[in-house]
């Protein structure tokens, strides 16, 4: 899966904007592994004192999980990913193989606190980054 990562240090909102190949602060990656976006939900459920059960859907969210592996990474790209991860606003755009076109930007937030880097076979020469993001403002 090809995807584009970009970020904004200001309050610029790209959510829903068409993909711009000439945008600065943007890099394209061919991910080693891209899990199709998963849907998850937060649900409040329980039982009232009168015995009635309740089930309330609080919100739903879409989760993006992808791996960028060492064959795509050098020090400059790792630096970009570091800036991307800690930027206040992060956006991704996905390439649709079926239509051979780029989708719109999607704003995402991270639930990870540490930069999610690991090293294949414990070799510092072979870094790998596994991002898990949630889409912002996704509704159904």
């Amino acid at each position, binding site marked *: *899966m090809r995807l584009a990562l970009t970020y904004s240090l200001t309050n610029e909102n790209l959510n829903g904007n068409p993909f711009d190949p000439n945008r600065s602060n943007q890099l394209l990656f061919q*991910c*080693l*592994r*891209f*899990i199709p976006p998963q849907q998850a939900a937060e649900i409040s459920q329980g039982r009232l004192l009168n015995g009635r059960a309740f089930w309330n859907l609080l919100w739903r969210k879409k989760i993006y999980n992808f791996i960028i*592996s*060492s*064959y795509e990474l050098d020090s400059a790209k790792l630096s970009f990913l570091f800036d991307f991860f800690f930027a206040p606003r992060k956006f991704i755009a996905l390439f649709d193989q079926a239509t051979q076109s780029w989708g719109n930007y999607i704003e995402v937030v991270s639930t990870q606190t540490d930069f999610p880097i690991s090293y*294949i*076979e414990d*070799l510092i*020469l*072979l870094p*790998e980054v596994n991002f898990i993001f949630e889409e912002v403002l996704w509704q159904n």
Partner: protein
Amino acid sequence: MAELILNSLTNKVFRLPVIGCRINSNDGPLILYHPESESNCKFTPITRSSDIGSILTLAYKIEANLYFPFNRFRNTNLLDKLESIRNEILANGKAAQILLFFGPKPLWAEQAPTNLINTDIISTTIDFGTNNYQNFAQPSFSYEIEYIEFRLRLVLHLFAIIRQPLFSWANSPFIYEKIQGDL
């Protein structure tokens, strides 16, 4: 990309017995010749599988095991030299340089065997890397002493990692071949 048709192999497959290795260090080189025939060397890819089932090669491990029929450990300084280089590796993380030789001897190797039986004119050297290579070669070694067939022998394990895909083996700095006349 040129087509490569591997036919007419008669008399064109060279025998290239490993004849020795050289480990460079700050104290000078350690050169060992005449390993046993079961010595071996291999390049192994480090791979990851992708989400569509393909396999991607990220790096290569180079490993060689050299068996030396040697048992005069007490009366020579071989083990002291190996320990000296090992301490250097502990300090630096890698050896200065490790070379593995196949076929006829290099020019500078005065004590190497001159005439090899049933070999041809190509010599090959595998360079496990030096400190000059940034980010992709980490040569190191370990050794063991084993008892086999009424004698002791030294087993030298050479090891290195190459990160960059070797897209140009023909021009690779890690394997180079020379015609004997060039030596």
